């Protein structure tokens, strides 16, 4: 059956519905310190005034306590692999070629993890708890987002 009824005189059974909406997103106040910092190659998290947990990136609250985060905390670009998987299929509209490792990275001093890529190591050598360090893109490519980090690579040593 043809989904393009112009090609045949048969009954129309399907229709195409193109829906293209334009939006202008504005980043949340609590993420501004993070976004402005990462534009300059630095990493800023936010601390919960209740349990003192540090979140990076931060959505504006400590979700556990339900209170607004307050202080900015500068973190280094080193952390550990909290969880990970090896992805064997492509991400729609993303040029990265499978297989690749997506890990939950917890930066040193942070209490939450974010998703990022792991590089400079064989996929089958990646391990939970592995210490990693950010590999940044060239400064000329830096924008407002974690994409400024190309991937995280093992710090080397104990896990090899």
């Amino acid at each position: 059956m043809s989904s393009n009824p112009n090609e045949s005189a048969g009954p129309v059974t399907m229709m195409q519905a193109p829906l293209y909406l334009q939006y202008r997103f504005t980043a949340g106040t609590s993420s501004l310190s993070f976004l402005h910092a990462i534009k300059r190659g630095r990493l800023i998290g936010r601390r919960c005034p209740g349990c003192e947990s540090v979140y990076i990136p931060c959505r504006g609250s400590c979700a556990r306590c339900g209170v607004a985060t307050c202080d900015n905390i500068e973190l280094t670009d080193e952390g550990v692999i909290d969880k990970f998987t090896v992805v064997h299929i492509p991400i729609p509209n993303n040029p990265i070629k499978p297989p690749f490792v997506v890990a939950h990275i917890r930066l040193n001093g942070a209490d939450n993890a974010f998703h990022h890529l792991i590089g400079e190591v064989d996929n089958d050598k990646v391990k939970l708890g592995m210490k990693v360090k950010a590999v940044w893109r060239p400064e000329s490519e830096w924008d407002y987002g974690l994409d400024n980090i190309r991937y995280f690579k093992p710090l080397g040593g104990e896990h090899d």
Partner: protein
Amino acid sequence: MTDTLNELPPLTQDFELGFTYTRSLGPVLSRFLTGLRDGQVLAARTRAGTLLVPPPEFEPVSGASIKELEPVAAEGTVLSWCWVSQPSSSAPLNKPFAWVLVRFEGCDGAMLHALAADAKEQVHTGMRVRVRWAPERVGNVKDIACFEVHKQ
């Protein structure tokens, strides 16, 4: 570090949420849209004997499944209208036009579509209009390009 968030400039980013959905039609919509492609307006015949355009899949109120469709004349009467003086890019017509509810000849209910008119003053409730067919028709409600004034 003290909180200086309010001094940081806001950040915005434009994005498009876009996808072309593929919709299957089922028997009633399929026959109606096939009719439009072929230049014909089909009405639903309800169990009470009335005709409805556009044909719903299920009768209003009773909810009975529509089984019968039959052709009606591609003309009707304006039941209500409004005037769009600044059409957006997604509007069916790219110059000022009216949205109209049109009751097809001999039918109950009314269909929403655009009416081409040069000025608001040409449009009024109760006026007679007819279908202006799109030059290329594919089986879509837009195969009716719009309605136009029907001078008798």
